[in-house]
């Protein structure tokens, strides 16, 4: 359930129940939920780089020649 919520795969009702009710009653889930959110944030900020410009240009060039 927690995973579905994190991944946006839960229904609005499930999400509401989980976030508004379950988390208040269940400490392990509360902890885990915030842990996973933090990890997701870390992943997003620290694990994305991007394509070097010359690589992208090279590809565009190759396609031009392929036409």
């Amino acid at each position, binding site marked *: 359930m927690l995973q579905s919520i994190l991944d946006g795969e839960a229904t609005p009702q499930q999400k509401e129940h989980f976030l508004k009710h379950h988390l208040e009653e269940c400490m392990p889930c509360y902890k885990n939920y915030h842990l996973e959110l*933090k*990890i997701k944030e*870390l992943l997003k900020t620290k694990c994305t780089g*991007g*394509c070097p410009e010359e690589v992208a240009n090279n*590809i565009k060039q190759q396609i031009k020649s392929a036409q």
Partner: protein
Amino acid sequence: MIEETPRQHYNDKQKDTIFHGEFMPHINSMYNFAYRLTMDSDDAKDLLQDTYLKAYRFIDSFQQGTNAKAWLFRILKNSFINDYRKKSKEPSKVDYQEVESFYNSEDVDRQITPDLRVEALQDMIGDEISDALNSLDVDFKTVIILADLEEFKYDEMAKILDIPIGTVRSRLHRARNLLKEKLSEYAKKMGYKNA
């Protein structure tokens, strides 16, 4: 490898429009994925080029305006498996079947979690998360990238990876637990240094 969709017959101008308007915008995500898979910038570059060339060659199989990102990721993943994955380097050290039921249980979440605290994560300002991600087996690394970095839905991931949705869920669950275990190790080391 390419799905059987009704073939289009684009002229050169249309191909150009699709290629630059719908394919090229994803090049950063695609490069990141290629790099995480190959762990080598030269191989990543080659893999990326191969993929985009294939995408152009098979552009008639792509329905304009549909999910280009998923379509491209699928090509990249298949190209990686066929051409770049060093088979000798990957003896199956992971018995997916055997441990799946254990790692899917809610109990595992509770056992691993106590060791890792959000505060410890706040202190990870270096490469810990990147290293932790890299340390995962390709299949686990892949689902984390697709779900958390690229925000694909489960059904999109199922199509990209050619696996059932159930497997997407369980693999993701397992991958996240492995990631937490790794981060937990780093946190312990950091705590030890500070003692």
